[in-house]
């Protein structure tokens, strides 16, 4: 992203970051089994960087904890994300970043479903279809320049 180019949305609404998860006594107990829950999944994706702004997806409210559904027993995860503007050209890229982050961070027993919050994007169906198609996701990650952008979104930002 060059400084000279105009951003699609130069002055987006900023949301507050949620604090770190409070550690409980049962989490420190060796014998208790902690299930994978919504908050844990949300913590995985909330710090993903936006491709345009030096802000996280959480700060832009692209991802919210209420739109994360996980079922540990049945090994399914469902995520809905909300682009900041309805014609955002980055929607596919953001979806892909979320998907890749989860593929890297979750045990492979999970079925991961990432889609756009219904009614928030102009080409919602096309994007959802792309993200659901395993072949296309795999093919996208073969593309070095696309992988580069995804990796940048997933890198921890150094200032």
């Amino acid at each position, binding site marked *: 992203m060059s*400084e000279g180019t105009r951003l699609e949305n*130069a002055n987006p609404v900023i*949301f507050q970051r949620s604090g770190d998860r409070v550690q409980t006594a049962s989490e420190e107990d060796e014998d208790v089994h902690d299930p994978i829950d919504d908050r844990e999944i949300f913590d995985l994706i909330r710090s993903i960087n936006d491709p345009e702004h030096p*802000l996280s997806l959480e700060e832009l409210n692209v991802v919210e904890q209420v739109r994360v559904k996980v079922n540990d027993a049945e090994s399914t995860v469902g995520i809905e994300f909300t682009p900041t503007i309805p014609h955002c050209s980055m929607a596919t890229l953001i979806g892909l970043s979320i998907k890749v*982050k989860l593929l*890297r961070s979750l045990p492979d*027993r999970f079925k991961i479903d990432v889609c756009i919050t219904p009614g928030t994007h102009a080409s919602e169906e096309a994007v959802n279809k792309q993200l659901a198609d395993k072949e296309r996701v795999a093919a996208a990650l073969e593309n070095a320049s696309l992988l580069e952008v*995804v990796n940048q979104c997933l*890198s921890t930002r150094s200032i």
Partner: protein
Amino acid sequence: MAADSTLALSLVEEFVSGLQDSKAKDAAKGVKDGKFTVLQLVEALGSSLTSSQPHTRARGVLLLSEVLQECYRDLTEREVEVLIAFYENRLKDHYVVTPPVLKGLKELTKCTNLPPGSAVSMLRSVFQDIHVQSLMLSERACVYSMLINIMETREAELKGLGADFVFGFVQSMDGERDPRNLLLAFQIAKNLIHRGYELGKFTEELFEVTSCYFPIDFSPPPNDPHGITREELVQALRAVLTGTPNFAEFLLPLLIEKLDSDVQSAKLDSLQTLAACVSQYEHKHVAEFLQGLWTAVRREVFQTSSERIESAGLAALTALTSCLSRSVLSSDSEDSLSTFLDFILTDCKHHLCEPDLKLVWPSAKLLQAACSASTSASHIITAAVMPSLLEQYNNRAQCSHRRTLLEVVQRFIHSVKNCQSSDNDESVFLAFRESLCGVVFSALSENNSSLQITATSVLTSLAQQAGLLLESDIELALDHLTRLLLIEEDDRVSLAVAECAGALAQLHPALVISKLIPRLKNEMYTEPMNQDQGEASELHSHHAVRQRCLSALAAVSIQPSVVQESTPVLLEVLRSAHTGDVSFSVDEVVLTCRSLQRIAEQVQDTEEAGRCFHNIIIPHLLSLALQAALQGEGSSGTPSPLVEEVVLSAMVPVISTSCSRLQPTLAGQTASRAVSLFLDGDVSFLPDNSFPSHMQLLKKQEGDSWSLSRLVCLLMGSVCSLPRSVEVPQIDKLLSALEEMSCTCSHPLSYTSAAKCFAGLVNKKPQGDSLDSLIQRTVKRVCSELDSPSSSVHTQAFTLMIWVSKALLLRYHPLFTTLTDKLFSLLDDAGLGPMAAADGFSLLMSDSTDVLNRACHADVRIMYRQRFFSENKAKLVQGFNAAPQEKKPNYLKALSNIVNKLPKQVQVTELPALLSLLLEALSGPDQDIHLTTLSCLEPVLVNPPQVLIQQLEALVNRLLALLCSPAMSVRIASLSCISALSYFPVHEVLPFRARVLRALAKPLDDKKRLVRREAVQARAQWFLLGSPGGR
């Protein structure tokens, strides 16, 4: 004389024809010793200088130049004149002769007795006859050094040359490429500008020839022997470019252009140069570029992704505004300050009305940067911004919006604080006082913790504005703060409130004394309602209120006058707790002691505060502790909370902090009272004196009762924290009593405190025979106890030994080695329990909180840990190799305990020798050893030494194996080490990528969330490794 001229001739012959370079030194020595003069040497050179071979001529000149290098100080003015004429003439000679000629001229410029006019003529010939940039690197350096030398000594003459000198210099540096020479050239240019040489019509040329290097793009070659850094060049060039306002019309457009660059360092350099140059400029220099500069700076702050650029941009804006503000004072022409501030306000002000959008903060920061530049700027900006901010606040209903607005307001107040000088200007915010207070108080009454926290910091900033708030405002504020302290459950809020109250107490001690302290006191003494029903939640909240009151009392006590009012309240709490008049829980009593400790740490060290602690608080504490202990003996009714060990341990730091920090003379008095109390049973200084006479606190108590003996920890607090200049009375008697107690008492706190107290005194005892014999006696006793299998006091003896070792280790005492040997032999000893000796090493290497640290004025030499380690590592390794299999873990434990506490640099250098041992430790079965070893390894992994990389295969295997450890802490530590491995040089770790990623898939499904979190991080790092856009 004849002989001497033959000497000169022969030296010349050997140097010129014989090519023996060393003869130049001999010739120089000849001149220095007066065997021949320089001019005689020239005569002797005659034939070489007139030779038809240019190389011979060059050789001849070189000899002369090298001689001059040695003895330019001894030349007479006449000689200099002749030599200069000679060298100037030689400049016209063949090009191979030029280098030695320039060298000679450079040496001559160092002469203090240059004849008038010769400097100028020298320069003229150089500029005329030489094209500097076609010379070699070192000759160019020669020319620059000449210029620098002459500028130092012949400034007036050079200025007489006028702009020609500048022109000559510009020509000679035009096209210079070598960074070493550039540093010289920049220095000359800087001198030209700063020393007021006339630049004349060559101003632009001088700017062009230097500014073409801006922004500096230089990365030194690896292993650069010259050690020139980019930063040096940047600073040197910046000094030139920003040196004169005459450059303004050229520099500012250049900066605007470079700010548009995509290179981050160019942006940064441009912004920093901008901030530096405007400090020299007046408004007329910048007037025509204001719009362009503002647009560029705004873009950087609005769209930046780097904090450094943002802060450089803000600093530049502040500098620019303060440049414009300066000229307002002197000119009545067009008011460029308000024009410029208008730009800023037009572009930024409306963003402040959208507190949930991204640009609110960049806009606020820009406005605040301008605001902090000068009083006039802050008047203009606050007048424009504050009303709308305050109105916004009142119109918005959402707490998050209100909080953002309040934070913006707080930053404004803070930025103004930075610029206000001490003169009697009234506060910029005077006009808004009422509405600001209204907003703050309404935010404090809001039921939202982050809003309340922000409001307390606004309140602090407002209070710090001199002469802004009225007394009635402060009173109201204190009411609000008290209310929050009493009702607000959120810890963050009470912390913020206490901090704010502390700030107010600094500024208005009297009001805090009269309003806040009495209310807190009352609150602590009200019994919880419905006590009969004893509802748990009710009791809990009452406890929380007391807790907050106690920490608030500590927070406000910084000024001695406040301390005099607050500490009696705390002492009263302790007394009522002891007597049982009002019931206080053990926790509350401990907190009270903590508050006293905090006050002792932060109060200003005045006589008043010292008296308060040494004459009132400490005697009261001792008296209460003694009463409680005696009452415990009798043991009738409910025991006082003061008999609890936690309370006693909390009293120790109160005493030790006051003794180490407040008023050494009074501290000495406290210590001698404590000693006479413990040795002689002298209770005369204690208040409420109804104690039995002739108590023997350090003697073995009847029936081995420990309630009195453990009071020795209070003695430790006072005598071990005195400054070393203060002497402890009756020290020998005291030491032997302590030794006896630590070796015989059976109560852990008593014998440990006695041992610590003994060690603390030994550490400070002056070097000498009495110390040596004391140590030897103690060591003998300890060893005989440890060696006797039937002894019942093994642990006691061992504790004393460890503490004495530590005391000696810290001060590098030579007798320390005898103790170390004993300690190592104990690693094999089963009698002490499996790991006691190994754990002893951890105590030896770590900082102790209550004695033997620098705060207690102990004699702590620097790097004692390194010293201990390097003296003993061989013994440890040997011991490990020699030990039977079942004892080896003891050595590994000791090793990891020691290495764990070493500073990182030492760990890195020592690691090669120990790596195999550490790897061995990782493969054993003991989880504790795994954990300590991993924590030794982790810091080393950040900057891995070569030997670790060689052992990578083994390391990765061990770490991956530990992922299956039953202990979650081991799994977590191992994962974070694996994560650190991903930062090793890519070509070394890339071969492991697939294997590590596969192995990390398993802990992603670990049953513990904390393990999964670490695994996710490690796996993410390894995925980025060697991937495009990753690392």
